[in-house]
């Protein structure tokens, strides 16, 4: 245990808020999706580190991370299908010009 436990938490906190910043400032749908992936990644680091350092005899954090990765994959697939369909109808990726879900 050469690395202090809190340094991992500092890393994941900073990564989380970088993702939040990107989500708030970006206007392109795909870059917003990337920011959401950054946020999920920060949460994964947190789960893994809590599992490793606080409850090393169990694997709950490990399984939660696995499920989050799976759900992130499903979310990315559906989001990209929606993005491609929107691009076909609106020819833009800007969230302020896309104001209608059904076209």
């Amino acid at each position, binding site marked *: 245990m050469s690395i202090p436990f809190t340094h991992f*938490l500092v890393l994941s*906190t900073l*990564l989380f808020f970088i993702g939040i910043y*990107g989500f708030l400032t970006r206007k392109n749908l795909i870059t917003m999706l990337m920011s959401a992936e950054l946020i999920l990644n920060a949460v994964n680091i947190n789960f893994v580190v809590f599992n490793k350092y606080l*409850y090393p*005899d169990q694997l709950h954090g490990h399984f939660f991370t696995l499920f989050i*990765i799976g759900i992130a994959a*499903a979310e*990315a*697939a559906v989001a990209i299908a929606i993005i491609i369909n929107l691009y076909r109808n609106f020819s833009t990726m800007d969230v302020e010009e896309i104001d209608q879900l059904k076209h």
Partner: protein
Amino acid sequence: MMEQALFYLFSAIILGFAIMVVTTRRILRAAIYLLFVLGATAAIYFMLHYNFLAAVQITVYAGGIVVLIIFSILLTSKMEERLEVPALRKMLFSGIVCAGGAFLCLHTILTYSFNPVVETTKPSDVKLIGEQMLNYGANGYVLPFEVISVLLLAAMVGAIIIAKKGKPQNP
């Protein structure tokens, strides 16, 4: 010593490329920087001896999601165009919100007294993971496993239906 140096190196890679993901003006480069962030995260999992999780991170994130994002960028964006810079006011307010939130969280983390367990060298082998994931007794995760399999199937069907070209509308 070596481990510490590697940890801080990977942390610097993660944070630096994450900032570049959210600030770069070229969208394809943002996707590649995201790949670096996810790869360095997998390296941190390797350092914590979560080898299976690191492998899943590389295959699903780097191999699946980033490739999917790159494909959709290539389908929808023109390579020569740049993303617009957000308005100064928006950047300022978002930065203040994020800095405030980060400060609050870091303050809480650094003042709370965690009690980390000292011996943490038990490797998580794949046999144990598989047995526990498919176990329906105590500490078993077979129900979420089945639910997520149905969820992935539903997401796949939904993605195909949404992205499918509709029939040309006859007058």
